[in-house]
């Protein structure tokens, strides 16, 4: 090993340099440094994957199933994904031609962007947004167009799209049920968005990773609306509903040519999604409906607790009906300072809304993917802090 000092010859490419570092990172570091922190800042389930799914993964490893799968994922898995999409969301996709299994939805979004965005293409993104969307678009040489949604309880509306100038955009990328706000889009909410997309010839990238986590309302996929299937790619995966974040498994469903283009990028850059995770996913879809239902009912209990505590504390918040987030307003102008003080003085970690784009300013994201006892303790601390 040499101890000689040297200057790296690498210079970061412009498209990477242009993306600012994630604001979440800073809060993660602060939270890691502090002692005795209750974190409401976690964007993943606090449950482990259903036991049956874990056992299927163990079994696959024991049998030595450690090779690649076909590029698009194991046929049996694609068949089950198609069956599940038909049964739960009224979506009909051909497992042989219209579904691709990916390394998390993150990869699927990256594939979709690289396969369908040309340099300079505009992609409308409702804001506040999941932190990865704008960079994913930029890495594909596209241009994100922020569509602020704060005025309508964080639902996307036709008015918001028009105000942001999305009629000139090439595509729309959104996540509903939403991270970070917990907002959902019902069928009647989606209809004007679908009409807008048809009128202005927008492609729609619909990230529906939280589709199974809705409370009191059924999830509707925009691809089920008239004239939308041909212009929509639906993204979903196993991370949230089946608590399999670390197994990294997602999928995309869309028109044959769109999935073929994504597969072209996928086969050269990823080859195939993790084999062990695919085995777990087959089992999850086959036998774990009950576990998902149980998790959903537990999230709902926590959601109701969190909403009622926010109301008691006078923190204004709309009734979030999806995912596992609430997005209350904070009583000061500076949500980032509020979140930092709450962390250092009260030991509760939340994520300041500005991290998710300008439209999130003045709010914080609180996740209720945390046990009820911890939520109770966290809100007692927040109460004392206020």
């Amino acid at each position: 090993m040499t101890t000689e000092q040297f200057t790296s010859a690498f210079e970061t490419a412009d498209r990477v340099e242009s993306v600012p570092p994630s604001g979440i990172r800073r809060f993660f570091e602060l939270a890691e440094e502090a002692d005795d922190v209750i974190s409401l800042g976690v964007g993943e389930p606090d449950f482990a994957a259903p036991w049956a799914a874990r056992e299927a993964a163990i079994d696959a490893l024991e049998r030595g199933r450690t090779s690649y799968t076909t590029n698009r994922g194991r046929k049996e898995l694609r068949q089950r994904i198609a069956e599940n999409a038909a049964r739960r969301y009224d979506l009909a996709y051909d497992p042989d031609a219209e579904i691709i299994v990916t390394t998390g939805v993150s990869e699927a979004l990256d594939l979709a962007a690289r396969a369908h965005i040309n340099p300079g293409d505009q992609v409308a993104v409702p804001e506040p947004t999941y932190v990865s969307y704008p960079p994913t678009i930029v890495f594909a040489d596209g241009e994100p167009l922020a569509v602020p949604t704060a005025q309508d309880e964080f639902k996307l509306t036709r008015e918001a799209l028009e105000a942001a100038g999305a009629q000139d955009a090439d595509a729309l990328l959104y996540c509903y049920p939403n991270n970070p706000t917990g907002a959902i889009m019902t069928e009647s909410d989606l209809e004007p968005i679908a009409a807008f997309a048809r009128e202005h010839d927008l492609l729609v990238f619909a990230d529906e990773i939280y589709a199974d986590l809705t409370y009191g309302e059924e999830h509707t996929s925009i691809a089920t609306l008239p004239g939308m299937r041909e212009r929509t790619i639906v993204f979903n995966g196993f991370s949230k509903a089946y608590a399999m974040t670390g197994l990294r498994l997602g999928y995309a469903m869309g028109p044959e040519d769109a999935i073929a283009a994504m597969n072209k990028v996928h086969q050269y850059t990823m080859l195939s999604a993790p084999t062990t995770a695919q085995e777990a996913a087959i089992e999850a879809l086959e036998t774990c409906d009950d576990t998902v239902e149980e998790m959903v009912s537990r999230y709902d209990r926590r959601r109701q607790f969190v909403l009622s505590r926010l109301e008691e504390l006078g923190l204004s918040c709309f009734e979030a009906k999806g995912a596992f987030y609430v997005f209350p307003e904070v009583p000061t102008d500076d949500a980032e300072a509020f979140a930092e003080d709450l962390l250092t003085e009260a030991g509760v970690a939340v994520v300041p809304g500005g991290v998710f784009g300008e439209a999130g300013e003045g709010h914080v994201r609180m996740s209720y993917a945390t046990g009820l006892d911890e939520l109770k303790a966290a809100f007692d601390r927040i109460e004392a802090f206020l």
Partner: protein
Amino acid sequence: MLDADEAEVAAAIEDLEDAGIIQGYQAIVDWRAAEDQRVRAEVELNVALDRETNYADIAERLAQFPEVVSLQLVSGDFDFLMRAEGSSMQEVSQFISDKVAPVPEVTQTVTHYVMNTYKERGESFETDTDDDRLSVSP
């Protein structure tokens, strides 16, 4: 969950109680988490029957003891499976040797002290709930 109103559920529960289907309600306790000590033994009992004495007679006699928390007739190598509890191992041992073994029909006792409980009546006793997720994530 049941999609029924409170009064309906209360009435249904009352009916089950009246019919003797619901016999009682008890807390599921993880004694490791409590200050009080609790020792549990699962005891295998073999008994000898005669014309005047059947299993139910013996069971009735044994079930009288407050230390006996459950008593079941089982198939297999022994006759009764008895669960006994006390506040110390000495107390439970004394109970078995002084009260149970001397019962004339009891021919043999095999006592298993419970060393750890992982799951009881459907509830898992979690041993380690360390949250290994990143404390803040997107």
